């Protein structure tokens, strides 16, 4: 199942050229671009691991792409997302975030039903991959 979260996730995967244009747009707006990766893409998992520090003071998108390539080399079998942080007063939050790398086989989620008191049903969503230990989920 293809994970759809962040911008552009209903489009075909962005090529490196597409990503370059998006990054350049972010840099021209003065946002700090940032790379994160995870192998637990649950929508409520907001704590992805950071790839280095957010990149401030860049002028050209190629610098970010260099880092992305380095990250793919090591974490190519995980989800990698790129986000841009706007530090201007009043915003101080992410302005854009999109997935730039996915594992080859995305196994998706299953729904677990939990019976509560009387006839209550509670539901939870759980990634199939999570049963395997960290680092082995998509290999």
């Amino acid at each position, binding site marked *: 199942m293809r994970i759809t979260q962040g911008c552009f996730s209903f489009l075909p995967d962005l090529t490196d050229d597409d990503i370059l244009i998006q990054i350049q747009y972010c840099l021209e707006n003065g946002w700090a671009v940032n790379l994160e990766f995870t192998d637990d893409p649950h929508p409520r998992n907001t704590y992805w691991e950071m790839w280095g520090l957010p990149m401030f*003071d*860049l*002028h*050209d998108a190629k*610098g970010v792409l260099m*880092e992305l390539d380095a990250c793919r080399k090591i974490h190519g079998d995980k989800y990698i997302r790129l986000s841009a942080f706007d530090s201007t007063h009043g915003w101080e939050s992410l302005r854009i975030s999109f997935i730039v790398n996915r594992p080859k086989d995305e196994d998706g989620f299953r729904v677990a039903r939990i019976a509560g008191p009387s006839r209550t049903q509670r539901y939870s969503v759980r990634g199939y991959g999570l049963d395997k230990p960290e680092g082995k989920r998509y290999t």
Partner: protein
Amino acid sequence: MNEGVLRVTEGLPPPAARISLAEEFAQSGVGSVLQQLDDELIGLAPVKERIREIAALLLVDRVRSKFGLASQAPTLHMSFTGNPGTGKTTVAVRMAEILHRLGYGRRGHLVAVTRDDLVGQYIGHTAPKTKEVLKKAMGGVLFIDEAYYLYRQENERDYGQESIEILLQVMENNRDDLVVILAGYADKMDRFFHSNPGFRSRVAHHIDFPDYDDSDLLAIGETMLASLNYKLSSDAKLALGEYISLRRTQPLFANARSIRNALDRARLRQANRLFAEGDRELTLDALTTLEAEDIRRSRVFQQAESNAR
């Protein structure tokens, strides 16, 4: 299938067509860049010559690509060598803008660094530091001042070597993304290149900055003053001419930098003189003119006098 072949060649002019180089030259705006360089930088003939060559190459490459000929981005990494104060840094700052206007380099900004910005203090600190700088310089020019400090021969565990390796790799792989300019004094740079042959071969343009002669330095002094809204009286101009030839014979002469320092001190003396003249109405002329006495009271003249005695 034939259609496909046709489509490829459609946008290109037929092989027999002619493209006027002069027209292309006028369109590119390269002429004004070179003219500006000629006007604003005094002397430096070999430097200007090399920039003209690079401009010509980039222009011809553009025409070639119109004919569908292979054109590879040229290697533009440079090394500037020369004595102190010969304008290495000044030209490097210009170079970023020039290359950008020639259509090479996407952003046209300059990142100036020294050893401190590239080399870390402990193991594992250097690589992220160097990469950080390289990322910032992408699309522009990376200027490494006093580049020979990167390599310390006496200490083989120096982290400079690590930085050099990363630099070399990026210089090779990202040739169309950034231009690296190394600058330093000629003898030390020679030693640096000797111990790092990889650098020597990856740097395509070795430009030597010659010393200025006296008339060049006088002209440079006047340009500096003009940019600060000062001018020399005709006597002061003579005095500055004498000052330059005297200063040259003294130790630690640093070409244009010495002139800049001398003029800074002359401005101090001028301000002091105006102050000492007491309460009077100042004219625009008095405020902007450096007189001969502002320059002649320099230590350089006094030393020359005492030597003569």
